[in-house]
């Protein structure tokens, strides 16, 4: 690089604020990649969890934030993905990356099938319907028909297929991929159609939007990333059984994170997931008995103080630009 090139670069840095953002992004990414070599395995496992939560929250946001259809059955797809990958890897000896990927694919197919009739319900009926599915899922997993597949209440105790380090990087990649796909969606005309459904579904139909098809597509994409992230998550947990796969807590977490960070925004779920990871971890270590309650109190406070979520708050005050890319 010669002198004039450097000068031009410096000039560009001054004029283009976005370059600063890119620089910060590069530093953050480099730091996250180097993290396992710097900090303790414990902290690494917290950051691993953060990646999973980011993917969960963004996946939930792709469906609910963009189309406005409140999905109270997120864990159904996480559970399908977790089970599918466990069955494929443990019982069928499928190579782990393929098993994880297929976990996402199966969750996506599940979303496609369930979505094609659940999404004919609107508003609160859809929300209640999904909640019922979530309650039905663990029962279904322990029926005699599915026990050969799911091993019933025992579930799977798996010997981890890969090292913690590989899982850390996989989770990192999956969370980045989820955010990237969400970015691609929200800045495209497909994303505009999803937002149109959220704003006014009948109006959207009158301008040629096949609302059923677009909703199901969003649901399937959301399900894919839920299942993919869950595959890695349950591999890290080292076991999966009906109550952990379809757990109410992991069903609520993404919802809380998205509401905290800013529903329907691209970076809201990421911000919410990062904050909630550390809030949850902090309370869990300080108040092991009452940490659900403590988390609940924090959520109530934040929702009261920041009703639209953090990103929305910043946008409405003009601190952040009001673009879909944020």
């Amino acid at each position, binding site marked *: 690089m010669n002198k004039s090139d450097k000068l031009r670069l410096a000039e560009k840095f001054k004029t283009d604020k976005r370059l600063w953002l890119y620089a910060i992004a590069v530093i953050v990414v480099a730091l996250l990649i180097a993290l396992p070599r710097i900090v303790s395995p414990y902290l690494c496992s917290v950051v691993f969890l953060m990646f999973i939560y980011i993917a969960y929250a963004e996946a939930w946001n792709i469906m609910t934030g963009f189309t406005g259809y409140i999905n109270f059955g997120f864990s159904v797809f996480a559970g399908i993905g977790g089970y599918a990958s466990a069955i494929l890897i443990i019982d069928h000896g499928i190579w782990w990356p393929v098993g994880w990927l297929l976990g996402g694919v199966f969750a996506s197919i599940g979303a496609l099938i369930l979505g094609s009739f659940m999404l004919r319900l609107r508003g609160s009926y859809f929300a209640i319907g999904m909640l019922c599915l979530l309650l039905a899922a663990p029962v279904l997993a322990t029926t005699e028909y599915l026990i050969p597949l799911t091993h019933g209440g025992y579930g799977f105790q798996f010997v981890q297929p890969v090292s913690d380090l590989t899982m850390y990087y996989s989770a990192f990649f999956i969370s980045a991929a989820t955010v990237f796909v969400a970015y691609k969606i929200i800045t495209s*005309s*497909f994303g*505009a*159609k999803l*937002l*149109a459904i959220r*704003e*006014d579904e*009948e*109006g*959207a*139909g*009158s*301008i*040629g*939007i*096949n*609302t059923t098809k677009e909703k199901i597509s969003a649901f399937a994409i959301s399900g894919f990333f839920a299942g993919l992230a869950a595959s890695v998550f349950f591999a890290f947990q080292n076991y999966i059984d009906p109550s952990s796969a379809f757990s109410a807590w992991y069903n609520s977490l993404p919802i809380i994170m998205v509401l905290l960070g800013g529903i329907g925004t691209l970076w809201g779920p990421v911000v919410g997931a990062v904050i909630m990871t550390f809030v949850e971890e902090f309370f869990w270590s300080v108040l092991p008995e009452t940490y659900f309650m403590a988390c609940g109190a924090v959520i109530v406070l934040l929702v009261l103080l920041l009703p639209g979520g953090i990103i929305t708050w910043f946008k409405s005050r003009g601190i952040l630009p*009001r673009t*879909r890319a944020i």
Partner: protein
Amino acid sequence: MMISVDRDEEGRLKDGKNVLEVQNVTKEFGSLVALNNVSIWIEEGKITGLIGPNGAGKTTLFNVITGQFRADKGKVFFRGKDITKLKPYQIARRGIGRTWQVIRIFPNMTVLENLMTAANLRERNAGEKALELLELAGLVAEKDSYAGELSTGQQKFLELVRILMFDADVMLLDEVAAGINPTEQLAALELIHNLCDQKGKTFFIVEHDMDVIMGHCDKVICLNFGEKIAEGTPKEVQNNEKVIRVYFGA
């Protein structure tokens, strides 16, 4: 009315040449007959007005044509094809666009995004097309504003050009001139005439402002209590006894 070779005795173009035809449509809501055996036809490239007192069934007729309601009896044809049972989005894609009595833009989306919602996913130059349409509507400067922040007049323009985004040929406008100032009204009418004359778009408009109807429509249809009571040139309808009775009670 002049009867030429390719028209039937009612003045209707023969052989399905009318771009839009409603045949004997009846729509009931419980005991209320909103539309009673209504037949109308719309010619391509013309502006047709629809008038009638409140509750006459004007908006119901629009809803039946665009598939929001399904007719209990009768059929709707678009370019000779039966569209009675199609879903609203399918009818829109065939080329029938509509606006609503109460504006239905997407308030929490930007003006540009509002247009992009109506873009065909396969369209390559959707962005450029959207900007051209915004130019037409005089909204280029507002493209990144939230649609909900626009004035009523601007919102009506936005709703109008959004239909053009998916290349609708027939545009059903529900009270386009209501609630906007006279300058905007003139601009809207000019836009409608331009689209009609230069691009061959067909308009079917519900309107309460008689100056708009009488001054700008090629044909006027009058509904009352779900029945068609008059049809013809603005002048004919203006002098029709039934219409006078409905409007003035004389």
